[in-house]
């Protein structure tokens, strides 16, 4: 601690801090452009010049460390002259186009110029003009406005981990850009819009659509991954105009992913269902809520009376709110059915699977890990903010190791990696487990016997010793592990590894409320208290593969959201009654559903999401429901009343979450199961015959909103359906890049273009799920046949 004085105010400041940080903490304003608390110090704009006693010249506050006894003046004549001088120079080349600039009203340059600028310019000469660049569908550029602060360049290098923008040329000719015209590909690229202090980088989809002062700001929570980034929704006339981050150091710091920033472009898509519809004698007709709800109750009653409640089930997307899932399970249980699930993409439901797949630690804890083993995770595209935390760990020197079915490209340096077909991931993990056992053979005799068949390689040994020797080690299982047909085996082995190595076990769940689904009791075998039910119902897979007579579907599109779309569509079409609560209508729904009830997306309803670290985050509706749509909790409440079930008298969504809060188990003490499970059978650790599908879900295909977000669908990350094979595997099947192939799984089939992709291991075919073109296929992780088409 040192004692300093700024503008006469005595302050105690930590050693090594810069003056600007001390001033910021004390609430003393110092103008700045290049300084940003999350970026390295460039000290190139000179706007932050202040007078420091005994220093000959004004000093930049952002690059001057505090020293004991320092006296600083931020508003003295000397400081002000320096600041005004810099301002005048910055404005020399800056255009006077504020009236047509999107940044107007929220521009740092505009604000500082108000305080430090002069009202007339002494500059008479020609201003510099810089050609705009096309850097993709998300960010507009007006490079003449750039003041060369290099925040955007440092963001790429330091935060995104992908240097795409740079400063080319020199002096008068310096320009910020990509040099060669190309789109930014970082999944965090939109953050440069917030960083840019002027209107040089602005949001392309938002361009010229509203002024900052016309919109009101509403708090919300990002609904597309299990991070739960905090958001501000900017709304005008009942419409979300744009989305920006809301600072929360514990979660997203000051960043958000592009998916969270631009998904709003899908909210009011043309496919929004704006009024209830019922199907009578095969024809759809729009109707009012009363009629639609009566129709729903009547049809469900009829189905239950005819076939028993066991023939009814409910499925909810994992991005539904806690309140919605809690009410849906309450409704179904009230009707006598335990057929409930939110784990739509899960393939394995064996008893060895995890009890509560959550992160097992705080998000901020991820940056403190010294060794990490990622298993089946493309964290960079699945939880971009999670990857950012891991990147910080890696830059600190942590070893991030991988057992993955695809050689994903990460924005942090990865250490040892095993890239292997999905079915061989189990034996790879078993290899690590056995290597750990071998470190202490005597103590682990039983495990060694159980793992006798497992081959251990040097890479398994390196992974094992890294995990064991690190102070803070972690195993993180991602989406491809959660959707893996042998999730139970992976979980049991992961558990064993954490016990033997002292590493922490964590899951990176896919959706914004995946963890909430477990807590809300949206499960066939456990209720909202976390207690086992006496007669468990069917899980998601069983419901959709065995077929039921009636279904209630919440906020989901089975062809894109389920582990086995072909089976799901077949059985939904065969059912007697399908009630669909959905914000969007699809042609598939028109085929299988009998009633369509328009419900709201996250922006139009209050609710709660529980993120990966188990944090409950409540949010409110930012805008009114579109058309006749209604918040799901209200619809389910009325259905409860119409079915004359007790306990459906809520007056607010909060009342529901409070009720659940009192019941739900605490994740930290709930445990994850698998501690005493016997080790999985590993005799078939060779590869299955033929190809194994990797059905991962691309970043912009994850849920019904994102799939309709026009801005995101134009980016390079928007995947088209295709089959990706490595060159050798393509050769073995007589296929070439660009060829057409017939891909089949049992009776299901699709015609897909072949892409040769070196990231895919032997014995595997990467065929993304969640994208149009692959929805006719079966299990996302299962055997596939591939034939060449002429």
């Amino acid at each position: 601690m040192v004692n300093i004085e700024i503008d006469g105010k005595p302050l105690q400041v930590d050693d090594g801090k810069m003056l600007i940080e001390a001033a910021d903490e004390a609430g003393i304003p110092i103008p700045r452009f290049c300084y940003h608390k999350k970026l390295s110090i460039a000290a190139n704009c000179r706007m932050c010049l202040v007078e420091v006693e005994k220093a000959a010249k004004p000093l930049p506050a952002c690059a001057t460390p505090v020293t004991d006894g320092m006296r600083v003046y931020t508003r003295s004549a000397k400081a002000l002259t320096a600041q005004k001088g810099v301002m005048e120079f910055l404005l020399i080349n800056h255009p006077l186009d504020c009236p047509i600039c999107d940044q107007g009203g929220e521009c740092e340059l505009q604000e500082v110029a108000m305080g430090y600028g002069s009202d007339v310019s002494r500059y008479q000469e020609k201003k510099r003009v810089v050609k705009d660049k096309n850097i993709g569908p998300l960010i507009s550029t007006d490079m003449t406005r750039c003041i060369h602060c290099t925040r955007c360049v440092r963001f790429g290098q330091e935060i995104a981990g992908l240097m795409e923008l740079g400063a080319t040329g020199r002096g008068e000719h310096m320009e910020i850009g990509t040099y060669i015209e190309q789109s930014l590909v970082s999944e965090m690229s939109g953050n440069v819009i917030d960083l840019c202090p002027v209107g040089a980088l602005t949001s392309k989809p938002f361009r010229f659509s509203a002024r900052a002062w016309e919109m009101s700001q509403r708090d919300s929570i990002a609904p597309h991954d299990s991070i739960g980034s905090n958001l501000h929704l900017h709304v005008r006339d009942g419409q979300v105009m744009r989305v920006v981050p809301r600072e929360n150091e514990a979660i997203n710091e000051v960043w958000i992913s592009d998916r969270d920033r631009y998904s709003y472009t899908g909210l009011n898509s043309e496919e929004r269902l704006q009024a209830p519809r019922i199907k009578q004698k095969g024809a759809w007709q729009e109707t009012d809520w009363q009629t639609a709800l009566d129709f729903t109750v009547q049809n469900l009653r009829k189905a239950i009376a005819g076939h028993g409640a066991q023939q009814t089930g409910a499925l909810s997307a994992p991005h539904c709110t806690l309140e919605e899932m809690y009410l849906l399970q309450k409704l179904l249980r009230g009707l006598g059915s335990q057929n409930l699930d939110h784990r739509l993409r899960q393939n394995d439901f064996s008893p060895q699977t995890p009890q509560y797949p959550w992160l097992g630690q705080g998000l901020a804890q991820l940056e403190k890990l010294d060794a990490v083993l990622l298993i089946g995770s493309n964290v960079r595209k699945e939880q971009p903010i999670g990857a950012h935390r891991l990147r910080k760990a890696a830059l600190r020197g942590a070893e991030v190791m991988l057992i993955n079915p695809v050689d994903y490209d990460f924005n942090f340096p990865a250490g040892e990696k095993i890239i292997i077909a999905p079915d061989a991931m189990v034996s790879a993990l078993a290899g690590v487990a056995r290597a750990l056992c071998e470190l202490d053979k005597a103590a682990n005799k039983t495990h060694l016997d159980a793992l006798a068949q497992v081959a251990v390689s040097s890479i398994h040994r390196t992974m094992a010793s890294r995990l064991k020797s690190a102070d803070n080690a972690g195993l993180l299982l991602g989406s491809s592990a959660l959707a893996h047909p042998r999730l139970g085996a992976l979980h049991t082995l992961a558990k064993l590894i954490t016990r033997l190595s002292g590493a922490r076990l964590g899951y990176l769940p896919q959706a914004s409320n995946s963890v909430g689904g477990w807590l809300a009791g949206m499960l066939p075998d456990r209720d909202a208290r976390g207690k086992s039910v006496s007669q468990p119902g069917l899980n998601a897979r069983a419901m959709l593969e065995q077929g039921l007579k009636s279904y209630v579907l919440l906020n989901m599109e089975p062809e894109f959201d389920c582990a086995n779309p072909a089976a799901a569509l077949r059985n939904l079409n065969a059912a007697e009654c399908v009630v669909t609560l959905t914000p969007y209508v699809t042609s598939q729904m028109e085929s299988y559903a009998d009633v369509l009830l328009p419900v709201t997306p996250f922006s139009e309803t209050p609710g709660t999401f529980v993120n990966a670290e188990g944090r409950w985050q409540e949010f409110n509706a930012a805008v009114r429901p579109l058309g006749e749509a209604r918040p799901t909790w209200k619809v389910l409440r009325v259905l409860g009343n119409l079915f004359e079930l007790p306990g459906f008298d809520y007056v607010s969504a909060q009342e529901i979450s409070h009720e659940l809060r009192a019941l739900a188990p605490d994740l930290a003490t709930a445990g994850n199961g698998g501690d005493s499970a016997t080790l999985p059978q590993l005799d078939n650790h060779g590869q299955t015959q033929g190809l194994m599908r990797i059905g991962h879900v691309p970043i912009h295909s994850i849920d019904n909103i994102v799939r309709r977000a026009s801005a995101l669908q134009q980016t390079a990350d928007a995947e088209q359906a295709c089959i990706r094979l490595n060159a050798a595997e393509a050769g073995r099947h007589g296929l070439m890049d660009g060829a057409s192939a017939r891909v089949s799984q049992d009776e299901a089939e699709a015609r897909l273009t072949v892409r040769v992709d070196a990231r895919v291991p032997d014995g595997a075919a990467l065929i993304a799920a969640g994208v149009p073109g692959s929805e006719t296929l079966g299990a996302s992780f299962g055997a596939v046949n591939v034939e060449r088409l002429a």
Partner: protein
Amino acid sequence: MNAVPMNIAAKPLAELISAEALAEIDRWIAKYPPEQKQSAVIQALHIVQDQHGWLNNERMDAVAEYLGMPKIAVYEVATFYTMFNLKPCGRHTIAVCTNISCMLRGSDVIVSHLEKKLGIRLGQTTADGKFTIKEVECLAACGGAPMFQIGKTYYENLTPQRVDEILDKLK
């Protein structure tokens, strides 16, 4: 747009320059700690330019790949220094200094004389491919301002007349 899984791989540097040139770059790389091999970027660019006369994107990308740098970081270096030619140039490149000392001593007159005489503007090449003129920053010969450099030779205390004599002697 289809997904671009990874940065499109650049052509290997070894295919673009001679083995001796590559060995020369390796000698520069060896002067720095391994994790800082990008310190050799200026030398590497010079060596590649010496082979081809100028740097195109393919050549810069190959250098980036070889040194493990982001491509844009190589473009930053290549565009910063006027010694790097980013376009094909004539047999003789006339690099005219227009920095402060030369400007005060009349570099404007030299530039306009050159432009008129050769019928091209700064940054252009004559149709016969003989001359390129370009503007550069201070070449540290302020004592002899105004000046320009042709190839590796400095010509100082220029006047339009001296310029004519110098150019006439060049083949």
